[in-house]
C-alpha cells in the first residue's frame, strides 16, 4: 500500500506493525471490553489492530487493514470456523482468513495474501499484544 506521509501522517503503513522494539507485551484493553465472536479494533501507536475474542476467551489479533481493498475493516467480519480453525470473513468481498496464522484461505490463482498477526496474552483480565508476525512485520528485535 502506498500512501503519502503528508496525507495521513498519523497513520503508518499498515503493513509495518508497530510493536515496541524491545518485544515487550503492551496492554490493550480489558477482556470484558471485547464481545465474544465479534471483532473490535485497537489503536496501537497509530496502527489499527483487529482483536477477536473467541467462545473460549482466547483472543486473536490480526491487522485491521483488508489487503484486497485497502480498507480498515477486518474487525467487522463474521467470526467462525473452517475445518475447526478459527477464521474471519472479510466484510467487503468475503475472503476467509485464518485468525491464528493470518493466511487467506480463499486466494485465487497464485495470489499470496496474508494478514499480519500478533501474539496475544490475557493477563489478569487484561489483553496484551506481543510481537507481530507475517508479511512486512518488523523483525523481532
Amino acid at each position: 500500500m502506498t500512501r503519502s506521509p503528508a496525507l495521513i501522517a498519523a497513520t503508518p503503513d499498515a503493513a509495518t506493525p508497530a510493536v515496541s522494539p524491545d518485544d515487550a507485551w503492551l496492554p490493550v484493553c480489558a477482556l470484558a471490553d471485547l464481545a465474544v465472536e465479534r471483532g473490535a479494533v485497537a489503536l496501537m501507536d497509530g496502527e489499527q489492530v483487529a482483536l477477536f475474542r473467541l467462545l473460549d476467551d482466547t483472543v486473536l489479533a490480526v491487522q485491521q487493514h483488508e489487503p484486497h481493498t485497502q480498507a480498515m475493516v477486518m474487525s467487522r467480519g463474521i467470526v467462525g470456523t473452517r475445518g475447526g480453525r478459527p477464521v474471519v470473513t472479510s466484510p467487503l468481498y468475503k475472503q476467509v482468513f485464518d485468525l491464528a496464522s493470518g493466511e487467506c484461505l480463499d486466494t485465487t490463482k497464485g495470489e499470496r495474501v496474508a494478514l499480519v498477526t500478533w501474539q496475544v496474552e490475557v493477563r489478569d483480565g487484561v489483553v496484551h499484544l506481543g510481537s507481530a508476525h507475517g508479511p512486512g512485520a518488523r523483525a523481532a528485535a
Partner: protein
Amino acid sequence: MNTSPSQTQPDGGSADPDVAARPLAGSTAAALPAEVAAPAASQVSAPQRVVVVGGGMVAQRFVEALRDRDDAGRHHVTVLAEEPRAPYDRVALTSYFSGRDPEALALGDPALWQDPLVRLVRGDAVTRVDRDARTVMTASGRTFPYDELVLATGSDAAVPPIEGNDLPGVFVYRTIDDVAALRGWVEERAAAASRPVRGAVIGGGLLGLEAAGALKALGAQATVVQFGTHLMSAQVDLGGGEALRRLINSLGVAVRVNTATQRMRPSRRTGAVGRLDFADGGRLDVDVVVLATGVRPRDELGRAMGLEIGARGGVVVDDACRTAVQNVWAIGEVACIQGACIGLVAPGYAMAEVVVDRLLGGAATFPGADTATKLKLAGVDVASWGDAFGSTPGSMEVVWADPVGGVYKKLVLADDARTLLGGVLVGDATAYASLRPMLGRALPGDPAAFLLPEGGAGAPELELPDDAGVCSCNNVSAGTVRAAVTEHGCTDLAGVKACTRAGTSCGSCLPLVKKLMTAELARSGVEVSNALCEHFDLSRAQLYDAVRVAGLTSFSEVVARFGTAEAGRGCDICKPVVASILSTVAPAHVLDGERATLQDTNDHVMANMQKDGTYSVVPRIPGGEITPEGLLVIGQVAKDFGLYTKITGGQRIDMFGARIDQLPGIWQRLVDAGFESGHAYGKSLRTVKSCVGSTWCRFGVQDSVGLAVDLELRYRGLRSPHKIKLGVSGCARECAEARGKDVGVIATDNGWNVYVGGNGGFTPKHAVLLAEDLSTEELVRTIDRFLMYYIRTADRLQRTAAWVADYEGGVDAIRAVVLEDSLGICADLDAAMVLHLETYEDEWAATLADPDKLRHFRSFVNAPDEHDRTLAYVAERGQARPATAAERAGAGAGPVLVAGTTLEVRS
C-alpha cells in the same frame, strides 16, 4: 509462424527502449518520449514490439488476448488509435444517446491500458508504413518501430454517390464523434423549429435501424428508406422483414421499401438538406439524413504498402491472418479473409485470437465466419443464423408467423427434415441461444415445437454436443463450459464466465451457459447437495422447518442440534442464514446477545458498508412519500455530518461516508425527527415504490401511495432469504414499474392485480400474474402468505423470481398454496405474519436506548474518542467521494484531498 529471434529480429535483437523509458501507469501518451531508436544490448529473449494500427473493438480484443496468454511478457504492444479515446463498444453506439457518457461504452477492464506492457496512443492516425525499415509513421510525425505489425483499421461508413450527399445535415453513423455531431444537429434543429425534427435514414439494414432508433431517441421523426424489398435483407428473409417492418412501425418509425433515393436537395432557406427525391417520383421533406448504406474497409495503408487487396477492398490474408509480407497481419473488418471482408465483431475477435496464438508459436487458423446475428433494436428482438434464406438445395422451411403478436420464426432444415441449417427469429428470439449451436445437427423431435411460443407444446431438451459453439463472441464451445464445471471446479455462473469468458461480451448465450452448467453440476453429483456449508448438511428451507418445529431460539442451540459432526462455530454463510430464520421464528433485536455475532457487518451496524469501510445510511421513506420537513431534516443531517447524498432507485435518500462511530449520532437525529431504519442493509423488505396514483394523477384509478405506505409499514423489518422490493401502480400505465418487483400491485377499476417474482439487476424478470381484481383486504392477505411462504421455503440468497421458477409447478402451484390453501398451511402463514407485526420495533430506536448495544459502534476499544484517520476524500460535483489509490499516492498533484467528510457535529 516462426517467431524465433533470428527471424524476427534481423538486427540481432533489441530491447524495447520505448517501454523501458515509459513512466508508470496513468500518464498520457503525449508526455512520453515518442521516437525510439537507441539499440540496446542484445538479450537472450528480447521483447517483441507489436504495433497495432487501429483502436477499435478488435484491437482491444487482440491486446486483451495477448496480455492474457503471453505469460512470459515477451510482447510489448503499442496500439495506435486515430480516435481520441480508448477502444469502445461500437456495437452499442446507440446507447450513447441515452447515457451521453462515453465511459458507458467502455470495453473490458480499463486496467488493460495501465499494463506496463501495453501502450495506447490516442488521437494520432498512422500515415505510412515503411515495410523495409519496419517502422510506422503517424500524422503527428512520430515513428514507431515494430517486430510484428497488426492492421486493425476497421471500416468507415460508405457514402453512396447520391447528389447532395455533402449537404449540411447529412451524416454517417460509425463513431462516437459521428453520433455526437448528429445529436448536436438534431438538438439545434429542434431548438430552431417549432415542429418536430424530420429525419430520414437511407439504408434499412442493421445500422440503418440503429440510426432510426437513435433519431427517435433524440425526439426526431424517423423514416427508414430501404432500396431492397425488406428490412435487414442481408440477415432475414422477406417474411421476417415484413414482421420487422410492422414492429418498427409500431415504434413510430416509418419504413419505405423498394425505394431508391435519387437526390438530396438543399432547403432554399437554410442551405442544409431539406428534401429527398425518390426514383419513383415520391418526395420526403427532411431536416436531417443519416446514410447507413454500408461500410468500406480502411485498406489505404495496405494499398500504400503494396499488399494484395481484395476485389471489393480489404487486405487479403490467409487463414492465419497473415498478409504476404512477413510479420504483417490484418484482423477485423479490414481483413479480406476467405475471399471477403466481414463486418461483424465476433469474426474479428476470432481473428485477433488467431494472430495472438500465432505470435505465441501456435498454429491456430480462422474457423470461418460465424455470421449469426442477434440484436435488440429498441426492444425488438431479431436473430438470424446459418442459411437463413434456405438457399441450400433441397432445404425446407418451417415457419411460424403471428402477425398480431408481431412474431415471425423460421427454421431451415436439410432434406432429411431434421438437420438444422439456419433460421430467422423476429419479435421473439428466446430460442436463439439453444438453437444456434445446433447448426448442422439433427434436431430431436418435431422441429415446429421449437418455434411455438413459451408455454406451448414445449420443445424437447437439447443435449448439445461438446464441440457445439455456445458463445460466438468468445468462441466457447459447450465442452469448454462443461469442463469449467468438471475440471476447473466452477460451481456458479460467475465462475464459469470468469473461467471460460463465455457470455462476457454480448451475453446472449448466458441462459444456455447456465443451463449447461446446471446440468453438468447435477451430473457430477457433488454440487447438487443443498447443504448450506460445512457446518450444516441441511438446505435453508430444511433448516427453517427444523428450527421452527424444534422451537430453537439461538445459534448455539441450532448448531448443536442440527449442525454437522464438526460444526465448529459456523461461518459467514450459515450464521446470517440462522439469524434470518430466527428473526421470523423467534423475533429479537439484531444485536440481542448472541444474535449480534450472526450478522453481516451491514445488519450488525444497521447501515451499508461501502468500498472504503465507511457506511451509508438510509432512513425509511414509506412509499416514497415525504414531507418538506422530513427532507429538511435529512438534508441538515447530511450537511452536518458531511455525507454524500444520492437518491436511491427505491424512492428514498442514501447518505454515504459515515464512520461506524458516527452512526449512533446520525441516527439519534433521525429518530428524534421521527424517522426509522430503512433496512437498506438487510435481506429484508427494502421499499414499496409507488406512483402518485389517484391522489393527484388524472389517470390514476386507485390510491397507490396510500397502499404503498400501508404495505411498507406492514412488511418493514421482515427478514427474508434475499432482499424484497414491492411496487404499487395506480393504473395500468404502471409508472411504479411494479412488475419489476418481487411483488407488484397494479390498480384496476375493480381493485388490485398482484404480480410476483419480478426483479431488476443482473437477470431482469417481469413479475407474473398471481391474482386479479382483489379487494385491499384480499390483496394484503395474499401478499402476507406469498412472502411468508417464500421466507420459509426459498434457498439462501434466492430472489422470488428464481424461487417461483424453481418451485415445482411454478406460479400455478404457489397460487394454489396461498389462495386455495392446497397445503393447509395458510393459517400457519397468517399467524407467522401476525407475529412479525406484533414484534416489530424500529431497531435503530431500540439500539439508541440501550448502552450495551451502542458498544458495538466504538471506533477503537482502547481509544473510543479517536476515529479512523486513514479515510481520505476528494471533492467531486460538490460532494465528497473516497479518494482513489492514485489520488492518495499523488496527494497534492491532483484534486484536493480532504481528510474526512465530517465536521465534528454531535447531537
